[in-house]
């Protein structure tokens, strides 16, 4: 490949953010157009990258490698395989729809988009990184803009608290992982941070058992693993809509993906030792998250806890350490990312009009914003794992893999499906059906055309993936084979 497509994808947002910062602050229209253009450009490139990945060859593709700090074996090295190619696409999708949804941000939009795009560069960078130093570098770039995005543009009631809590949790996670990574670097004796080289490091079992928790939990904090999930619902609720979409849709995958890429793939023996314990934590995530979601009265908290529950499924898929579970988790990361972005977009649209998110006070919004209601129902069906929607494609293999390794856990985890259905149906019936409260009569308008584009785009992806899984499943399968090779070969 002559054209460095991955580097262009990674650096498009940050260059865009520098350009946006140079536009005078009062030229808000130009800021928005520039942001949309950059997001569209990144989306087109990531779609192109996704479809030109050669499944027959598999392995890491679009690889670029440049020396960064040769003295310590640090290089700038990118590449995608079947596991992270969908995640790059997901980031492109969420970034684009996030800009559409944020069109009405009126308080300092210049800074808003600039910070959002710095975040996006961090996310892209982590997904394509093939070098441990580069991974942690971009990982931390993705953490700090979140603080400003939530605390400046977030929900006034909880934003200061939630932003600080979220940032500190994630920073703790990343520095703990950093210590683990440094231990791996020096113990391997290879003198390189190259992850592909480190796959052959042959760490001793004792070392792997010791370091695995540092790396896995350090990253999994961002994946929302129990008992470190606490930042996530508060953070999601306090964040402005586009940031919630980005955060639940993409950032939580960042944690799960990094835990997989560094923890499970580089320390397979450590993973084998710890997974029976971790799977219990993920079970708590899945079931407890679903129950908590079903007792929330705030619309956004319902979605926030449902994210905790669904991200538990991802971690659970990884924890099975078998190919079905991994496959399901890989697809679930993408499917949940799009679904939860859709959910948060809907919540934002309802809140912008109603100025409340209390479910008992809402009702009858189907009549006022029919497309929004429809989109939420699509997301809800995905969330319940209904066949024909992407959620089924993702959850079915996870449960299949789970049944193979831990049948009892599978049975308990299945409870979550019922609970999920109950809270999704409750939200649909209370918010979108039912009678419209008189206070909303008259002054609630339908959403703008840009919002509609975003909703149609997101729900379309969920349906296409559900109806035609071949668009993603074989690709992820190649990535899973690579992981299984590492797990089996060690």
């Amino acid at each position, binding site marked *: 490949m002559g054209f460095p497509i991955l580097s262009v994808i990674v650096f498009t947002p940050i260059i865009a953010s520098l350009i946006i910062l140079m536009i005078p602050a009062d030229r808000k229209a130009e800021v928005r157009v520039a942001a949309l253009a950059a997001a569209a450009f990144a989306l087109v490139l990531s779609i192109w990258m996704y479809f030109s990945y050669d499944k027959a060859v598999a392995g890491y593709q679009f690889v670029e490698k440049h020396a960064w700090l040769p*003295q310590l074996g640090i290089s700038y090295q990118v590449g995608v395989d079947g596991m992270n190619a969908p995640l790059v696409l997901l980031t492109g999708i969420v970034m684009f729809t996030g800009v559409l949804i944020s069109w009405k941000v009126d308080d300092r939009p210049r*800074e808003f988009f600039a910070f959002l795009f710095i975040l996006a560069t961090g996310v892209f960078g982590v997904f394509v990184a093939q070098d441990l130093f580069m991974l942690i570098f971009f990982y931390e770039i993705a953490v700090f803009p979140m603080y400003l995005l939530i605390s*400046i543009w977030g929900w006034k009631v909880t934003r200061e608290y939630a932003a600080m809590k979220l940032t*500190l949790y994630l*920073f703790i996670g990343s*520095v703990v992982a950093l*210590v683990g990574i*440094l231990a791996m*670097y020096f113990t391997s004796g290879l003198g390189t941070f190259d992850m592909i080289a480190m796959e052959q490091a042959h760490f001793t079992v004792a070392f792997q058992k010791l370091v695995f928790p540092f790396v896995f939990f350090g990253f999994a904090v961002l994946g929302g693993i129990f008992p470190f999930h606490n930042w996530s619902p508060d953070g999601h609720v306090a964040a402005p809509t586009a940031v919630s979409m980005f955060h639940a849709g993409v950032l939580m995958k960042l944690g799960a993906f990094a835990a997989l890429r560094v923890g499970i793939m580089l320390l397979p023996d450590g993973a084998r030792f710890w997974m029976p314990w971790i799977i219990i934590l993920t079970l708590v995530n899945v079931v407890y998250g679903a129950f908590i979601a079903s007792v929330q009265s705030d619309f956004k908290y319902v979605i926030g806890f449902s994210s905790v529950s669904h991200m538990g499924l991802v971690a659970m898929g990884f924890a099975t350490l078998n190919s079905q579970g991994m496959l399901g988790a890989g697809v679930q990361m993408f499917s949940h990312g799009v679904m939860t972005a859709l959910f948060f977009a809907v919540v934002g649209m309802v809140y912008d009009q109603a100025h409340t998110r209390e479910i008992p006070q809402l009702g009858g919004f189907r009549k006022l914003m029919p497309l929004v209601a429809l989109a939420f129902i699509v997301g809800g069906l995905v969330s319940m794992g209904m066949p024909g929607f992407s959620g089924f494609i993702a959850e079915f293999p996870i449960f299949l893999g789970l049944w193979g390794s831990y049948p009892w856990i599978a049975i308990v985890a299945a409870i979550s499906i019922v609970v999920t259905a109950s809270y999704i149906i409750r939200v649909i019936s209370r918010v979108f059906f039912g009678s419209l409260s008189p206070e909303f009569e008259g002054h609630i308008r339908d959403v703008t055309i840009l919002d509609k584009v975003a909703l149609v785009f997101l729900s379309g992806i969920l349906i296409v993936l559900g109806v035609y899984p071949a668009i993603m499943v074989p690709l992820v399968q190649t990535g899973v084979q690579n992981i299984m090779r590492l797990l089996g070969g060690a």
Partner: protein
Amino acid sequence: MIAVNFDPSMFLAILPEILLVVLAGLVLVLDLFLPQERKGSLGWVTASGLFFIMALSLIFARPPAEPRLVWGGMVRQDSFGFVFTMLLLFGAAISSLMSIDYEKFGKRGEYYVLMLVSTLGMCFMASSSDLIMLYLAIETTSIPLYILAGLLIRDDKSTEAGFKYLLFGAMTSAIMLYGFSLLYGFSGTTNMYLIAEGVSAGHLSLAAVIGSLMLVLIGFGFKVSAVPLHFWAPDVYEGAPTPVTGFLSTASKAAGFAVLVRFLLVVFPAVTPEWRAIVAALSVATMTLGNLLALVQTNIKRMLAYSSIAHAGYMMIGVVAVTQLGATSVVFYLIAYLMTNLAAFGVVAVIGRVTGSDEMTAYYGLSRRAPGLSLILMVSFLSLAGMPPLGGFAAKFFVFAAAVNSQMIWLAIVGVLNSIIGLYYYLTVLKYVYLYPPPEEVEAVSISRSYALALGVLVVGIILIGTIFGPWVSWATAAAKALF
């Protein structure tokens, strides 16, 4: 080893120092002849002179590949001293740029002369290899700094700062001198490298060595503001004029670390396990106490004082590693820290001049009054917190890497936990800047040319250090190699 015979090339070893004296003289003469209204250019002369000295030294006075002792063993010509000299000249140049706007001292020749003389002392601190030379260098550095800290004689806080600094400085320097005299008494020489031979050969009793080590450490600990010798820092930083505070917290600290690292690694390798334990304990105490006390500050200069104490603790992690990587990480950290802290104090100086206050309340809603300045503040604070892609991240990364490499994972973990506390208070200030509404309608903050130049150079530097590590690491490695 010691070049006894005179050799004209020895002048090259002290070229920057010679030029500093010339520049100081030039500024004094100009001060006599320039009319009052044009004295603002004195700062520009000082800053451009310093940059010129840097350029000349880089071209003509690079150290030889093989380090050598010159001027009868007083000075060691090596990369370590050279890298620090460049760093100190840079810090002094930026500090003088930041002083130009001040009515009370920015247009006075003696201010710049004092700063130059102090820089001269610092450069010798970094390269001296003899106890007498070292003591002279430390005093040449300190005495002008005492005056600079107390420069605003009509301001109680400033005179308090100057006086406090003088008293504590004189006391610790006396104790350090006592340590020097013991070392001389036991070994019969004042040359650091010859003392080291005596220590390694076991001619000295262990108790004597450790005793004099402790005394010497008190002097150095004061210079780098390590706990328990940190207590002067907050008062002096708060009271001194802000550009002086910036100079004090960066260049003076860098020079202190140069001496600390060279002295420990060169003179005391034979008792490494002992001093390692002592410095590790100091490091933990310094970062923890600095960070915890920074949490509760309401004055930004005091907060930055405690934060700079904490940063001294992080740098000591690199010292404790006792490896070439450790020394490299300290030098790299100092480069990144000097740029970052100068930028932070630069913003504080601008705000302090416009609002007349250094309280945190003056920073409420700053982003609406001065978006550019707020971005610079954000860059420097996030770099202090250790966030990529800024210099502070790479610096922390190398320091922690050095600790892990030396089997001191526990120390890396302490450092990591501390950096989380640090993140909290840096973010709190950013919250005031970006989130809180401004107290009342205040006019926009304008930046003068000298500040724009200084802050621009620093921000570019912070980002370059954090993204392109190669050249900086090569420098730091070259410096570290000279000690092993």
